[in-house]
């Protein structure tokens, strides 16, 4: 019998070398891509001017063009002509938004963060929404999690684990409001009113289609760039830039509006789950354990202890309730390899920063693996149950 250690060592000896042809192909295409990436895009419009003006010939040509343009237009333009566009128009227009489909990203659209679909009532309150969290994953990987919210119920699916968690939540996740372009516009408007920010409006010239609003903030290197549709006055894109002094690089975050005020197909708000999904329903049943007189730390530790004991004893009805309303197959199939034989000890609970109480509880216990007893160390998660005050549950995964 070949021991596992031998196999590990064998895997560690795997070594592949690139060929000279491959090196040449990658270098050529990589350097071409690098050169192309330096070509400025619409979003880096200010750089276009700087790049063009580096050339002395272009400088002369531009200077001549400006002189001609000024001479020709000096009699046509009234110096007091007001700008055709005012930021207030966008503030007002955004109030007429009743649905949007947006995409958020870090750095560049290559690093997609979230995609949202949302519908609002006449007062701007969310009626229903769908969020796909990508956080850098590519199209073929699928999102990390998908959430549908409607009628105070949040239905979230975790594709990696095949778990669906249904909870009662009275308001949507704060991110939706934070990423709402209307919120961005409102914030900018207030900051400008309070003297905390300045805006510079560049209306479309030549074949540029969008109005560019650059927002700079008093006493800060941060800036935001909003692109506005001149017809609807809606913000179609928002990019925020700031300097991270610790990492010594500029960070950016973007919101791109893919659709405004379009009716969505009902399937957008349907999770369409695979057949083998394990559903943890915290809406139609009482789950977890009551906190009683215990402190948060005490109840976190207590519920993990009781959940592990019930699991070890094979009492899946009780264990399932403590594990947040989990059906038996969560423990008998999905996580059967983690079933405790004997509970050994729990460590010091550690608070996790979240919108509701959440503690990590280190556990050490024995499992049976490969017909042998092995000791494992890991962390269980004890959290307050959404929509069931004073009740706590245990989650094996960190995500729910």
């Amino acid at each position, binding site marked *: *019998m*070949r*021991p*596992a250690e031998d*196999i*590990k060592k*064998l*895997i*560690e*000896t*795997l*070594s*592949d*070398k*690139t*060929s000279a042809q*491959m*090196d040449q*192909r*990658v*270098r050529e*295409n*990589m*350097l071409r*891509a*690098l*050169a*192309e*990436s*330096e070509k400025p895009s619409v979003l880096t419009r200010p750089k276009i001017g700087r790049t063009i003006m580096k050339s002395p010939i272009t400088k002369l040509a531009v200077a001549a063009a400006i002189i001609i343009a000024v001479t020709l237009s000096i009699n046509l333009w009234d110096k007091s002509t007001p700008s055709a566009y005012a930021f207030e128009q966008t503030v007002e227009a955004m109030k007429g938004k009743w649905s949007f489909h947006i995409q958020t990203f*870090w*750095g*560049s659209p*290559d690093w997609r963060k979230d995609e949202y679909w949302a519908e609002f009532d006449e007062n701007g309150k969310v009626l229903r929404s769908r969020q796909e969290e990508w*956080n850098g*994953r*590519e199209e*073929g*990987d699928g999102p*990390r*999690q998908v959430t549908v919210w409607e009628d105070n119920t949040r239905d979230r699916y975790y594709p*990696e*684990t095949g778990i669906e968690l249904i909870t009662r939540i009275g308001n949507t996740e704060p991110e939706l409001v934070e990423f709402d372009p209307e919120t961005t516009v409102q914030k900018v408007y207030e900051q400008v009113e309070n003297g905390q920010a300045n805006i510079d409006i560049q209306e479309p010239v030549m074949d540029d289609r969008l109005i560019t609003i650059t927002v700079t903030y008093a006493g800060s290197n941060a800036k935001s760039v909003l692109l506005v549709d001149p017809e609807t006055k809606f913000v179609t894109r928002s990019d925020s830039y700031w300097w991270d002094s610790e*990492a*010594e*690089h500029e*960070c*950016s975050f973007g919101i791109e509006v893919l659709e405004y005020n379009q009716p969505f197909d009902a399937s957008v708000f349907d999770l369409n789950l695979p057949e083998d999904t394990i559903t943890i329903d915290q809406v139609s049943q009482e789950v977890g354990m009551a906190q009683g007189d215990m402190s948060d730390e005490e109840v976190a530790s207590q519920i993990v202890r009781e959940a592990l004991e019930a699991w070890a004893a094979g009492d899946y009805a009780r264990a399932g309730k403590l594990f947040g309303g989990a059906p038996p197959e969560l423990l008998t199939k999905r*996580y059967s*390899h*983690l079933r405790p034989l004997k509970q050994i000890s729990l460590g010091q609970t550690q608070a996790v920063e979240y919108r509701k109480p959440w503690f990590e509880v280190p556990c050490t216990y024995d499992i049976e*693996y*490969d017909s042998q007893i092995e000791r*494992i160390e*890991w*962390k269980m998660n004890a959290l307050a149950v959404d929509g069931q005050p004073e009740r706590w549950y245990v989650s*094996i*995964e*960190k*995500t729910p």
Partner: protein
Amino acid sequence: MLEDKLLVLKCRRGSKDAMCRIYLKYKDYMLTLAKGLLGDQAEAEDIVHDVFVAFARSSGKFQLTGSLKGYLATCVSNRARDRIRARTRQADALGSTIPLLAGSHDPEQHAAETEELTRLRQAMSQIPHEQREAIMLHLKGGMKFREIAKLQDVSISTIHGRYRYGLDKLRSLLNGEVEK
């Protein structure tokens, strides 16, 4: 780590030299990882090529939040997963029962390897991709379970389970035991 950060900063400013240095530094590492995940030399080369071209294309806006090595390993892993899914879709479309990993290795590479390594590659091709991924990223990618779990957004226990089951299966396959 610091050297990598500096190279990334230079790449952001369009340095060809820095881009080439990153390629030289990580090309073999990435190829080994990709080939371990896919079992196919040509596909592994394509993945390394695609990762570097995509990296170069986005380098102007690229922001390194963790280690460059970890980032590149994640890119390889993600693209390998795409390829596996594409193969599955293709196999489904053709109604084929061909194994997901045909193991079309380069004959020259084969000749250079010991029989033991060849058998290992064949065995690797028979375990589920998630398990192969956990094993390769941990043992060849040099990533900790915590890092793999964070990258894939699953718990450490899930990654640990995949790793253990994967090794267990490899051991059975290499010892000639029948898999059920």
